[in-house]
């Protein structure tokens, strides 16, 4: 079952197309990274999914419910906004008490204590108005997961955290794998690569990619090899006549970057050639595309 499914979801502001014909599919239980440059439409998508904005056209289903029919589905979602805003006159504990009240939680005290401990705000007695951005972000995470919702929508959850806080938050999100669906937008590609099962890339309001990281790496594989040998010149002379070699270029003193037609064929053939030509192999590296490579390729080429 899909936790999030959109069909031609669009949002226009006057003539500006903030989100255009979005067909998003997020299966249940996955951690989904939603990527895109600034102003691509990530936050608008989240606002549409939370019924904080009305779609110009299209439909969206959350956990099987058509979101335009009723807003009851929101009770199954934990939401963290990009810049969390709270009632500044409350302390963290009072705020979580209020959230548990409106979420209809029964006997929430133990859970509140757990959450405060988890985000290290259990000893904080000051009002939220005095908190740093990082503390507010941590409180935002606590309020999002307090009622144990099956779906979390997090807008830039690690943006204001220090490296330690970021690691802890990512570990926490990763621990939900298989139990909750997490949909989070971010600019930090490393975070997505670390914990996500699937990614969606949005560019100028259009979803240009929606797939698992594994599939993406396969489909965007550049079939590129880096080898370092003792006689690079000799090897290049041999390889230039072979039809499975698409491109090659020398790197540093003894290195060669090879672009091949068929990676598996090259992996089998190259050792034979090296042995026949009596060339010593010092280094062999398969160049896998990183998420950053894919992101940049998709954003710049739209493919």
């Amino acid at each position, binding site marked *: 079952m899909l936790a999030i499914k959109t069909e031609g979801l669009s949002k226009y502001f006057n003539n500006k197309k903030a989100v255009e014909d979005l067909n998003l599919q997020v299966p249940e239980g996955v951690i989904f990274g939603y990527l895109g440059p600034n102003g691509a439409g990530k936050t608008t998508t989240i606002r549409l999914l939370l019924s904080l904005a009305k779609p110009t056209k299209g439909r969206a289903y959350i956990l099987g419910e058509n979101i335009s029919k009723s807003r009851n589905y*929101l009770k199954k979602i934990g939401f963290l906004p990009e810049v969390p805003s*709270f009632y500044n006159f409350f302390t963290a504990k*009072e705020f979580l008490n209020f959230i548990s*009240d*409106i979420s209809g939680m029964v006997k929430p005290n133990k859970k509140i204590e757990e959450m405060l401990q988890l985000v290290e705000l259990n000893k904080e007695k000051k009002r939220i108005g005095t908190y740093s951005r990082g503390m507010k972000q941590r409180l935002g995470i606590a309020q999002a997961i307090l009622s144990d919702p099956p779906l979390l929508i997090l807008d830039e959850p690690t943006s204001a955290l220090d490296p330690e806080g970021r690691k802890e938050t990512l570990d926490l999100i990763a621990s939900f794998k298989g139990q909750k669906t997490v949909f989070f937008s971010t600019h930090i590609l490393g975070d997505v690569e670390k914990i996500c099962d699937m990614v969606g890339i949005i560019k100028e309001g259009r979803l240009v990619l929606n797939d698992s990281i594994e599939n993406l790496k396969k489909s965007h594989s550049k079939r590129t090899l880096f080898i370092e040998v003792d006689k690079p010149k000799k090897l290049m002379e041999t390889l230039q006549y072979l039809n499975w070699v698409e491109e090659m270029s020398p790197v540093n003193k003894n290195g060669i970057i090879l672009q091949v037609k068929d990676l598996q064929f090259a992996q089998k053939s190259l050792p034979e050639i090296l042995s026949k030509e009596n060339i010593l192999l010092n280094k062999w590296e398969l160049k896998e595309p990183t998420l950053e490579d894919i992101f940049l390729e998709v954003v710049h080429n739209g493919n």
Partner: protein
Amino acid sequence: MVTKLMKKEWNEYLKTGKFYILLFVFIFFAILSPITAKFMPEFIKSLSQEITITVPPPTWRDSFVQFSKNLNQIVFIVIVLVFLGSVAEEKNHGTASLVAAKGIDRRKWVFSKFLFQILFSLAMLTIAFFLCFYYAKLLFPETQFYLAFSSTVLFAVYLFFILTLTIFSSSIGNSMLQSAGIFFAIFIILNILNIIPQVNPYNPMTLPSIENQWIASKVAWGNTIKPIISTVLLSLILIFSGAAYFHKQEL
């Protein structure tokens, strides 16, 4: 849900000091009104020894005319300033979207705010009335409860309207400034309409002047039934349309 949301409002008013501001303003003018009525003529006389100023002897009615004036001017302004941002500031600050994303019924959210404000204001008004009555009775033993009370009930109806107009403006506007613009635009239009004789009997803006007439002469509920019914109807339209608008609004 409404009571849970009202509990949050109560906490907010206590923790931000709004409770104490309103309590002070109501109590201050409740005590000040009879004292001013009693001693103002003597104060005016003492201002000049060369010119003889004739001032009619004060009566208990002056206490409540003064009380009504203070309620309709200074207390009115304070109430509007304190309550006007109740929805708009939450939209502007981002807390409205956080609460709305929890799946609460937005209409209940607006009603809870209004219900809290009206109950809170009526409680303040009741305290203020009894304080004013107590001091008026001390200074003017002939003070009549029924006339004073009836006039304050009329102010309560007017207050009901003002609070619905406040919550309506706050639900429509996206900031305190926008809401203030909407509130005062409607307030001024209603005051201008008050000069049209055909509209006057149905206009909520006639209520403050009737309050004074009642204190000065006698209570005539029959003459006030039209403005009371139209005020209540207009108030209901404002609160329901404000809540309906907010329910569909983008946050």
